C-alpha cells in the first residue's frame, strides 16, 4: 500500500465524490482513480460501487476504512515524532493513573523520554476510572493506565500492558512477618487501610474477597492516595493491599494472600482517533512495545 493511495481512499470514502476527493488531495481525477484501482487490486476487490451519480463504499471498503484511517494517522504521527525528535521538541504529557496504579510504573518510560529531552511538561492525575474517562474524553488527559477496564466506553482504545496479582502490605514488625502467606480470615482481623473512594480497585477487590469468605473486616481507615496509604502502613496503622508491580522500595513487608485470585490487568487507554502531540504519542509506543513482565521478574530475581 502506498500512503498516497490510502490518503485518496480515505478522502473518497469521506466525500463519496471523485471530483471533490481529487480536489481535496490536490491531484487530477484520473490519477486518483488509478490509485484507487491499484489499491483495489491489492486488497482483492472493489472498494466503491461506482454508479452514474452515486459512489458508495462496498462491504470490503467499509471493512478496510477504519484500518486505513488508522494507518494514515499512524504514519502522520510517526513523521511528526521523528521531526520532534530531531528538533528536540516536546509536547505536554498528561497521564491519568487509576487509584492503586503506582506512579513508579511510569519511571522507565519517563526516563527514556527524558533522555531525549529533559524539558517534558508532565502532569499526572489520579482518579477513579469514571473520572479519568471523563477527563480523557474532554481532552484534559492524553492517556491513562487503568485496572482491567472491561467496561470502558467504546470510544476508548485499550491495550493490556501486563497482569499482576494482589499482595498484602504490612508494617515491617507485623505478626505476619514469619508467615509465608496470609489467609483471608487473618486479614479480616487486621485494621485495613483503604482508599476513601469506593471506586478504588483495591477497595472493590477487598469487598469481594471478604464477601466470598463470609467475613467482615474488624476495622478500616481511609486515605486518599496509594502513597498516603503506604505511609499509614509504615506508621503501623494497619495493613493494605496493592498490585505486585508496586516497587519493593517502600520499607513495608509484602506477603502473598492465600487464595485463588484472578490477575488484574493494567491497561493503557487512549481516546480512539484522537491526534496526540509527539511526546504522548511516543509515550504510548514505548508502553505498547515494552517487556513489562520481564522487568518485574528481573527485579524479583
Amino acid at each position, binding site marked *: *500500500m*502506498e*500512503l498516497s*493511495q*490510502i490518503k485518496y481512499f480515505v478522502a473518497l470514502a469521506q466525500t463519496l465524490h471523485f471530483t471533490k476527493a481529487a480536489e481535496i488531495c490536490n491531484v487530477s481525477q484520473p490519477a486518483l482513480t488509478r490509485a484507487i484501482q*491499484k*489499491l483495489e*487490486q*491489492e*486488497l*482483492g476487490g472493489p472498494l466503491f460501487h461506482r454508479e452514474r451519480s452515486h459512489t458508495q463504499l462496498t462491504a470490503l471498503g467499509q471493512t*478496510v476504512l477504519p*484500518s486505513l484511517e*488508522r*494507518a494514515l494517522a*499512524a*504514519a502522520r*504521527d*510517526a*513523521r511528526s*515524532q*521523528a*521531526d520532534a*525528535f*530531531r528538533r528536540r521538541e516536546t509536547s505536554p504529557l498528561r497521564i491519568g493513573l487509576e487509584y492503586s496504579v503506582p506512579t513508579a510504573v511510569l519511571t*522507565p*518510560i519517563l526516563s*527514556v523520554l527524558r*533522555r*531525549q529531552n529533559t524539558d517534558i511538561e508532565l502532569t499526572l492525575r489520579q482518579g477513579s476510572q469514571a473520572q479519568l474517562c471523563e477527563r480523557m474524553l474532554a481532552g484534559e488527559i492524553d492517556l491513562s493506565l487503568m485496572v482491567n477496564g472491561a467496561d470502558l466506553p467504546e470510544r476508548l482504545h485499550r*491495550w493490556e500492558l501486563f497482569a499482576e496479582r494482589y499482595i498484602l502490605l504490612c508494617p515491617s514488625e507485623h505478626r505476619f512477618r514469619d508467615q509465608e502467606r496470609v489467609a483471608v480470615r487473618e486479614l479480616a482481623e487486621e485494621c485495613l487501610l483503604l482508599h476513601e473512594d469506593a471506586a478504588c480497585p483495591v477497595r472493590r477487590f477487598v469487598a469481594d474477597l471478604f464477601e466470598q469468605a463470609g467475613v467482615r473486616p474488624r476495622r478500616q481507615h481511609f486515605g486518599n492516595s496509594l502513597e498516603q496509604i503506604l505511609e499509614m502502613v509504615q506508621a503501623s496503622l494497619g495493613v493494605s493491599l496493592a498490585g505486585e508491580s508496586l516497587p519493593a522500595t517502600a520499607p513495608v513487608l509484602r506477603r502473598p494472600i492465600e487464595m485463588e485470585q484472578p490477575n488484574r490487568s493494567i491497561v493503557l487507554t487512549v481516546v480512539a482517533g484522537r491526534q496526540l502531540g509527539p511526546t504522548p504519542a*511516543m509515550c504510548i*509506543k*514505548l508502553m*505498547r*512495545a*515494552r*517487556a*513489562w*513482565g*520481564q522487568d518485574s521478574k528481573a527485579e524479583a530475581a
Partner: protein
Amino acid sequence: MELRQTLTEMMAQRPAAYQALLNDLTAMLRRAALSGVLREGEKMPDFVLPDADGDLVASDELFHHGPLVVVFFRGEWCPFCCTTLTALNDVADEVRAAGGSLVALSPDAASFRSGAWQRQGMRFPVLTDIDGAVGLQFGTMFRVPDGLRDFYLAAGIDLTLRHGDASWFLPMPATFIADTSGTVRFAYASGDVTDRVEPAEIIARLSEVAATPALKHS
C-alpha cells in the same frame, strides 16, 4: 549455505496449502504493491522507534555513524524472518567494520513485550514499528489476504493480539541502504518471503555506499 537456499528448503517443508497461499500473496504483491516500495534515489523516511530494551533509536542519530541498513521483517512468529535475523546477527561486526549500522523493524509488538529479542542476544537494534507506521512510509506494508489470515489464525498466530491492532497489516520482507544524507542507495523487495538479500551482499553494498560521497535525494 546461502540464506536464500536455506529459506527455500525451509519453505519446501511447509504444508502445501501454506505454500500455495504464499505463492498467491507473492503474485498479488508483484502485481499491485511492489511499485509503491521506496526506491533508490528517494529520501529514506526518518524514524524514531523503541528497541528491544525499551530505549528509543532514531535514524537521525544512526546516520552520524555512517550509512544505514534497514531490514523489514514480519515477526518472531515467522521462521523465515528469524533465520534471516540470525544470519544478520552473524555479520553484525562486519556491518560496523564497513562503517555503517543495521536495524531491523517489525510491527510484531508481542515479541518485544515478551522480551524475545533480549533473550536472543541480538547484536544490532531490533525496533518495534508499532502499527507499521514507518513501514507505511517505506511502502512495505500490505493487508494480509483473508485466506492467509484464516490459515495463521488456525495455526495460533493472531496478529490482532500480536500487533495490538486489528488491521492485519504486515511488511513484506525488504532491505534498504541509505547514505548519510538519507538517500536510498539500495532497495530490495520481491514480495517473496524466502527471497532476502544475502548478508554478504548487504556488507558489499554497504561498503560501496560508505566509500562514495553521499548523494542528493530526489
